[in-house]
């Protein structure tokens, strides 16, 4: 016997000989196996304790200590078994089901099975509690699904593009090979073909393959389009371990130089097979034309392999030498080069290398080996390899290429951060709801606590509830993610080459969704649960008099934070939206209404120079003959279409300066009608003449910025512009108005127009129509196909459409921020409404009293509204402060608007206050309906 128990015995006997609690405790132990809700059990224990005590007393049995009571009850134990069995039969069946709740503290915690069945009971109770208030549950689930779904959708997209492991065999053995130029902007770049062949001979690699992207015209029967094509070495698929879905993929054979033992073949992606061939089972063996040359399809690549450059999904793969022979130019090679120079010149670095390490070799060992080879190459070929090193990086550590990866990571992180903000707003609603519910049941909690249920037991029950909500939220969220992915995969961004990203949620998306849902549930369910479990009987009794101050504080903080987050999101959205408006209103220096055009490059489809000339002459004639056409023009490219040509240039008086110091000027080639068709004002001088175009005369038209820069305060017309010290200068014949050339947000930029040569293959042909509705891309496509049905069309449409990529980024940003902002606003309004409605219901008594005492309706409404608007005020102030701090990170993508634009801030605040006012007025009106008599009878 220790001191404690002796003290207890003495206390018990000195205060009351047969202390009720003593009997109750002993009876409870005997009834541990009894199921049933806490209330019912407590009643049974109470009654039995009383009767047993009577019986023991009457029998003169000594029962003054816990030990004595227990031993007496133990002597009756054989009766208790029957008693429990009898009682169970008498209990209503649903009460038995929900029983484990109360029995757990003594009987349930011991075994894992008991805990499991306890949780099962918790789940049943939780489900019943949720179903009891279907409307509220629906609202909370909707916000959860929205919040979780948004996160899952964004993660799903990022995952598909960036994180998903590549579908290759043993990816841990695969290394990317980069050629490194110290101090260059792009540190890890492509490699030269012969260098890769030398690295391939290393003992460190089992094999090495290479690939490079190219844009090519793919013609199938009558139709043609520009696609992303990838030229690969013959061993590419073999090395990666990609099996064919149909037919076969390229095979290396025994070639020492794997650049084209394959001949005129190509393989197509699963996506291209579906989209272009309707998944035709007999696609293998069909002949298509790539750049006008017939190639035979030998196989289909499985859907889960989309090339090694994430986000750029090739539609076709072609052997390197085949691609070069049919005139495909690798996107990594600037300028023109012969096939021989691309394959043999160590100065031309255009191939991306990928190696599979020899068995048992680590990346570090292989790296050291490759550095030796690079050092040997330096010594052997000092002219080309002097400043070059080799860098090998595990494939799994590279997203697109090392130079881009960090900015891709940043953008992903910002996007995930923003959607997470929305989830936080949704979660705040969840927390508030759970807290309100938990505290509405505080009587039950207190009874359970007083009956000996542990606090952890009660927290568990509440957590099970929030986990159940989270599970439902996760399920809904996944559906949203799948829906978003389905939509995303159907979006094709029409640029020069239609970009498409296949998004397919996988296990990682599921895991991510479950993780954030669980996190949400635990974080936002735990606070209310702990708060509710703090309840003790005394405070519950007092609760009816006052209000739970702590819990109102918690809820209010949540709402203020929600409002703050929403303000930030809405300000982002507002700025992005106004940017788009500004961008579309920016003066591009052109009058483009009623102007449309088409982008073509027939040379890439095998046209000879004379054929190119003939084709465009015919196209011009046919367009001119079409109804409504005023005038037709050709240019090398349109401004704002992502094509940038630059040339060093100086006025003739500075021609003696070092050529390295000559400024770079943006250039384009245009014909005589260009300025007229595009509505670019001729300020001085004139446009080119047909004669100048025919003779390829050395004349130039410059924009105002260039004129003022090179000939400040002078007349530029008639002056000479030098672009190359070795060739004749160009005489300025005209000065035209400024425009936007690269981006809408750019500062005034110099631009020089040169005469378009008749044999220029890659062109945009534009025409001005009488009426804007006549200006469609369709007409141009039909006319071009009327001349050559197999011609691939890069792009067509109105000038706005052809230059739409210039507003793509602000439009995407506005859409993303707009959606996030609206969702955030909606969720905050729900949260605000919920908190105020709850506060009104809590203050029914007080409000009723006030009305009874003669308070005017206005005063009562003001009472409620003041509370809501104070919360909103705090939130708005906080959100605005945060927004001022963070919007500057957006400034790079804003057009003609400051990151702290006052009007946007004010508008957002006004919108938010308006929504808040509505969310406030509904509960405030409800307060007016409180009937004084009812309110005072309450309790």
């Amino acid at each position, binding site marked *: 016997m220790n001191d404690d128990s002796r003290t207890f015995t003495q206390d018990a006997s000195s205060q009351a000989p047969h202390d009720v609690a003593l009997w109750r405790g002993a009876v409870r132990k005997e009834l541990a196996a009894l199921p049933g809700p806490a209330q019912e059990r407590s009643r049974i224990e109470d009654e039995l304790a009383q009767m047993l005590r009577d019986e023991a007393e009457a029998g003169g049995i000594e029962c003054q200590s816990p030990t004595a009571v227990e031993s007496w009850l133990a002597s009756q134990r054989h009766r*208790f078994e029957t008693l429990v069995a009898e009682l169970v039969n*008498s209990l*209503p069946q649903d009460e038995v089901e929900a029983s484990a709740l109360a029995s757990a503290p003594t009987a349930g915690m011991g075994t894992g099975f008991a805990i499991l069945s306890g949780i099962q009971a918790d789940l049943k109770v939780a489900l019943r509690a949720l179903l009891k208030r279907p409307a509220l549950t629906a609202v909370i689930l909707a916000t959860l699904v929205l919040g979780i779904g948004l996160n899952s959708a964004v993660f799903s997209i990022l995952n598909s593009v960036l994180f998903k492991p590549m579908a290759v065999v043993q990816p841990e053995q695969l290394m990317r090979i980069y050629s490194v130029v110290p101090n260059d902007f792009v540190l890890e770049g492509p490699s030269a073909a012969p260098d890769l062949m030398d690295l391939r001979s290393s003992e460190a690699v089992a094999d090495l393959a290479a690939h490079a992207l190219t844009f090519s015209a793919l013609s199938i029967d009558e139709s043609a389009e520009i696609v992303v094509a990838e030229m690969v070495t013959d061993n590419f698929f073999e090395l990666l371990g990609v099996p064919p879905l149909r037919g076969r993929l390229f095979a290396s054979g025994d070639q020492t130089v794997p650049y084209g033992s394959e001949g005129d073949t190509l393989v197509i992606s699963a996506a291209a097979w579906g989209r272009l061939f309707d998944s035709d089972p007999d696609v293998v063996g069909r002949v298509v034309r790539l750049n006008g040359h017939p190639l035979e399809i030998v196989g289909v690549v499985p859907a889960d392999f989309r090339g090694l450059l994430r986000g750029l999904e090739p539609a076709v793969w072609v052997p390197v030498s085949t691609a070069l022979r049919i005139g495909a130019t690798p996107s990594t090679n600037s300028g023109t080069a012969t096939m021989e120079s691309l394959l043999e010149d160590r100065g031309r670095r255009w191939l991306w290398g990928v190696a599979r390490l020899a068995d048992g070799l680590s990346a570090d060992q292989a790296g050291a080996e490759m550095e030796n080879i690079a050092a040997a190459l330096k010594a052997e070929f000092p002219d080309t390899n002097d400043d070059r090193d080799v860098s090998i990086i595990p494939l799994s550590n590279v997203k697109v290429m090392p130079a881009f990866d960090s900015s891709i990571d940043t953008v992903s992180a910002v996007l995930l951060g923003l959607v997470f903000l929305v989830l936080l707003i949704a979660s705040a609603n969840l927390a508030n709801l759970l807290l309100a519910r938990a505290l509405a049941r505080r009587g039950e909690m207190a009874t359970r606590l007083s009956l000996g249920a542990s606090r952890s037991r009660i927290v568990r029950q509440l957590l099970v509830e929030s986990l159940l909500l989270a599970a439902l939220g996760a399920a809904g969220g996944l559906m949203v993610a799948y829906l978003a992915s389905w939509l995303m995969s159907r979006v094709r961004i029409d640029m020069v080459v239609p970009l498409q990203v296949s998004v397919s949620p996988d296990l990682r998306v599921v895991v991510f969704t479950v993780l954030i849902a669980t996190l949400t549930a635990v974080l936002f369910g735990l606070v209310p649960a702990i708060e509710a479990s703090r309840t003790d009987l005394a405070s519950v009794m007092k609760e009816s008099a006052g209000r739970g101050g702590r819990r109102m504080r918690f809820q209010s903080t949540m709402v203020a934070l929600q409002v703050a987050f929403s303000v930030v999101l809405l300000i982002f959205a507002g700025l992005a939206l106004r940017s788009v408006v500004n961008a579309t209103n920016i003066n591009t220096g052109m009058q483009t209404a009623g102007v449309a055009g088409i982008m073509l490059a027939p040379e890439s489809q095998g046209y000879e120079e004379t054929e190119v000339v003939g084709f465009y002459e015919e196209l011009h004639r046919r367009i001119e003959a079409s109804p409504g056409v005023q005038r037709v023009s050709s240019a090398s490219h349109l401004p704002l279409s992502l094509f940038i040509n630059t040339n060093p240039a100086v006025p003739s008086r500075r021609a003696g300066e070092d050529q390295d110091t000559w400024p770079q000027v943006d250039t384009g080639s245009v014909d005589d009608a260009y300025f007229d068709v595009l509505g670019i004002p001729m300020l001085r001088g004139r446009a080119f003449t047909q004669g100048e175009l025919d003779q390829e005369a050395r004349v130039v038209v410059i924009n105002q910025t260039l004129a003022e820069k090179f000939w400040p305060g002078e007349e530029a017309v008639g002056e000479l512009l030098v672009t190359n010290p070795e060739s004749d200068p160009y005489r300025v014949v005209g000065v035209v108005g400024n425009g936007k050339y690269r981006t809408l947000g750019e500062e005034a930029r110099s631009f020089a127009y040169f005469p378009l040569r008749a044999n220029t293959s890659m062109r945009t042909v534009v025409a001005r129509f009488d009426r804007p509705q006549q200006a469609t891309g369709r007409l141009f496509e039909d006319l071009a196909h009327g001349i050559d049905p197999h011609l691939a069309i890069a792009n067509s449409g109105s000038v706005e459409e052809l230059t739409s990529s210039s507003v793509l980024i602000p439009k995407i940003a506005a859409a993303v921020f707009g959606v996030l902002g609206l969702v955030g606003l909606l969720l905050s309004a729900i949260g605000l409404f919920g908190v105020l409605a709850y506060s009104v219901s809590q203050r029914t008594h007080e409000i009723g009293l006030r009305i009874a005492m003669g308070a005017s309706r206005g005063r009562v409404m003001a009472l409620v509204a003041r509370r809501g608007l104070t919360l909103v005020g705090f939130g708005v102030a906080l959100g605005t402060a945060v927004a001022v701090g963070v919007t500057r990170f957006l400034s790079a993508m804003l057009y003609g608007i400051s990151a702290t634009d006052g009007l946007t801030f004010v508008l957002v605040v006004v919108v938010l206050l308006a929504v808040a006012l509505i969310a406030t007025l509904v509960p405030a009106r409800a307060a007016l309906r409180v009937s004084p008599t009812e309110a005072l009878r309450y309790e």
Partner: protein
Amino acid sequence: MTKPYTDRERKKGTADLLVLALVGERQRHGYEIAKLIEQRSGGSLVFQVASLYPLLYRLEKKGLISGRWVEKAGERRRRFYRLTAKGKRFLGEERQRWREFVEAVERITEPELA
């Protein structure tokens, strides 16, 4: 009309009848009921509280009796049971059935009076 008893029902019904009859006189608390059964049966019927309680609980759940906590001055708080209207009807029927049963038994077991 009353239905005849099955064997199981009779055992249960007998105990029920005892309790209902005792509570029908006036409201009583649990141990008192157990004690009265013992006294009036002259000690031939003994119900321990632990055996009696499920019976009381069941009768209350069925709505035949109803209990309430009563605290009398100088006495401890106890739960007192009384007969409900439904209980009264049920007790009447039970008594009738019991009488029929006893009469049947008597007719068979008593020697016929000459």
